[in-house]
């Protein structure tokens, strides 16, 4: 218990430590206290925003996966020749932002069994995060060749291709991914946004909102799509959302200034989102200002971000 408590002192949002502490308290008979710890761990997980729904399932996972890594360490002690433990451990590393450790595990799985398209896709994703786009495209292509209808691998390859500057090829993959994802509105919307195909995105965003009416990003992206399609902004129906990305909605509504939004963007991802939206708002007034924002975005932030891909496609449409 003291070790869990110490971990929590260092990182109060450490859900796995909270759950471990809950388990220890439960065994000792402190049932109510244990229940509180379990509930707190679940609350953290419920409040963690997942990765974009068009991405590989591992990249949609967020949070701490230290317990998973340790659990699969134990399995590998006993089962060195099976692939699942390496894949699962690799996934835990990838989801917790350690692509190099993930890559080592995927490579080990592929040494044990060469013909694993699903692992080739994972390896490609890890390489892509590491910025090794050329190898990533190669690995993801192995997965796509083996399973041409693998929407996740296509989306991963599109991003890696974008990393290599191959916008046309990336859009080809996204178009195919969009077809394969039909019926999954949120995922389709993200793909259409990456292509900056606003007309394609808008109905998917409407459907995504029907299913998840409280998701602030669907509101934000819908607002963005309507602006880019020169439709009325529809600001009246916006929910009141505090924090992020509520600030971006407030920016659209003219309630906060560009300087203020940049101040509130306290992470890299938020900064990219803010710059992108500043470009959207500037576009009608001064196209060059918008393009300057988007140019900054593509130079500073990774191609895995929706806004990066969108900006690239918007910039590619510049009149010559």
């Amino acid at each position, binding site marked *: 218990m003291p070790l869990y408590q110490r971990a929590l002192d260092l990182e109060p949002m450490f859900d796995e430590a909270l759950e471990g502490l809950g388990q220890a308290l439960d065994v000792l008979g402190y049932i109510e206290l244990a229940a509180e710890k379990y509930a707190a761990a679940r609350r953290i997980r419920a409040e963690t925003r997942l990765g974009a729904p068009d991405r590989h399932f591992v990249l949609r*996972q967020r949070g701490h996966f230290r317990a998973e890594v340790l659990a699969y360490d134990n399995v590998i002690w006993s089962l060195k020749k099976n*692939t699942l433990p390496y894949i*699962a451990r690799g996934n835990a590393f990838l989801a917790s932002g350690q692509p190099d450790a993930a890559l080592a595990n995927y490579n080990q799985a592929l040494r044990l069994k060469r013909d694993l398209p*699903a692992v080739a896709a994972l390896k490609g994703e890890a390489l892509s995060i590491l910025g090794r786009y050329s190898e990533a495209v190669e690995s993801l292509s192995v997965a796509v060749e083996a399973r041409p209808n693998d929407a996740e691998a296509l989306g991963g390859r599109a991003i890696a291709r974008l990393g290599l500057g191959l916008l046309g090829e990336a859009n080809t993959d996204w178009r195919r991914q969009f077809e394969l994802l039909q019926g999954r509105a949120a995922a389709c919307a993200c793909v259409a946004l990456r292509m900056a195909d606003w007309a394609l995105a808008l109905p998917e965003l409407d459907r995504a909102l029907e299913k998840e009416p409280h998701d602030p990003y669907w509101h934000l992206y819908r607002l963005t799509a309507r602006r880019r399609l020169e439709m009325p902004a529809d600001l009246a129906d916006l929910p009141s959302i505090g924090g992020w990305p509520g600030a971006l909605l407030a920016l659209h509504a003219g309630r906060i200034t560009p300087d203020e939004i940049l101040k509130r963007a306290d992470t890299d991802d938020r900064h990219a989102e803010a710059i992108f939206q500043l470009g959207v708002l500037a576009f009608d007034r001064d196209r060059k200002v918008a393009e300057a924002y988007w140019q900054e975005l593509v130079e500073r932030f990774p191609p895995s971000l929706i806004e990066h891909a969108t900006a690239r496609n918007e910039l590619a449409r510049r009149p010559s």
Partner: protein
Amino acid sequence: MFSVIVYGRNDSHGYNLHKRAAISFNAIAEVMSDPDDEILFVDYNTPDDHPTFPEAIQDTLTDKAKQVLRIFRVRPEQHVHLKSKTHLVALESQSRNIALRRSNPRNRWILYTNTDMLLVPRREGESLSMIFGDLPDGFYQIPRFELPEMLWEAAFDRRDPAGNLTKLRDWAVRFHLNQVVHNFMPMKYDALGDFQAALREDMFTIHGFDEDMLLGWHCDSNLAARLALYRGRVDTLIDKVFGYHCDHTRVAAVNNKGRLTKMNDQDRFIWDVSSPYLPSQADTWGWPDVQIEEIRLDRDTSYERFVAGLSAAMEPATEPYRSTNLDWHLYSDLTYDLHHTLPFVCDQVLTYPRSTAVMLVASRAELVSSFTKAWSAMGFTGSVLIPSECKGLPEAHPSIKTGAFSDLVGMADLFIFEFGLASQTQRETVRLGRSASPSDTKSLNTVARLFALAASIEPETRPKGRRLPRRFIGVNVIYNKFWPLFTDHIVANINPFCSQVLAGIPRRDASLKGKVLRFRGRIGV
């Protein structure tokens, strides 16, 4: 809020199955509180002439259990394409996927468990629906605690689930029942298949259970491996609910042969799983295009249909009893009490699909009219097929379809052959030594000829796509001169004379005698 998915069949899977299952159904229903909650039981491959398993134990279920229970009946004919690939008679992956496909789309959660589990919310007064309602997305399991056979068998009252759960809470402490057995990841706990809760949406995304797992065992571990990959972790609900398993090790179940047990390959289906998805079954899992019958215990029950059928066909008796006689000297007397016999005939057909087409080959017009009324009132939508070779039978009822035997035989799913005297009326006293008239004999010869022909050519006249033999029901074929004929051709049990009915499938006797019999049947000798 959640759909519970369980499966089984009307057989004897392990010790005192009926009690275990009743305790479990009632206990699970007891902890449901959302109007959308449901228990989906897939009754897999129970023989057509048996009721489903929950129907067989319905009197031991609480009203609440009957209200939430939806039974999906998978017929032997629907399983037959898999028969050569497995030694098992009930398939877990197929069953669970069939239920998942047909589960209530308003429910966010699917809970996989088995019909010998009791789930006890740790906080008294809290339901499983409330627990699931507050739960963030994820894949959840709990450890399984064992309940000694003596306790559940001797102390539980099947129809008192609340009392049973109270007893469990007491025993858990008093008898040290709660032992968590941890297991390797991704399983997390031993016997994980008794509580696996996943989002319905996730289960559709990963294409359900792996339907290549046809040899039994490890379906739960495969699911855990795939959902652990998909979700990134295996969560626990140990702080919310305890699960108790009614131990049944006195008698080994049929799929448990100790070290000789056949099972699915653990490396392939657990330790070398590389993806949560099963693209090869993406469009076929859960048999989306197959019509699966749904049966309820709270409405339109078999008993209600049976009563409706017989009430439409006959009036109550006006005397305390009627008599018959099986003395050998009455062997040739083919009179029988139709009203007494009709319930036994209806009993033979009631469990068949409502779309069944039955061929009725009979001597007595009154049997045809009574049976047809009952057939229709029991809710059957298929036709009663009457060969035009049988003269003097009613044709007016909308369910009746007439035609040449050769045209109808390929449409029939089931056969009834009746060997009575066309001239007998219902008011006659039976078995007093009455002889057949020439017209009776003529009718009987037609019935006998068509019977032998139908039994002999049954394999090659099955409706298109049908692979299993069709069932033959003989009316008035016990202890009379048509008994040898019927049992020469049909594999039938010895039944009491009083029931008047025998039934079975055609005998496939490869001996010379069998071949001669079938040859004679074909040519009408």
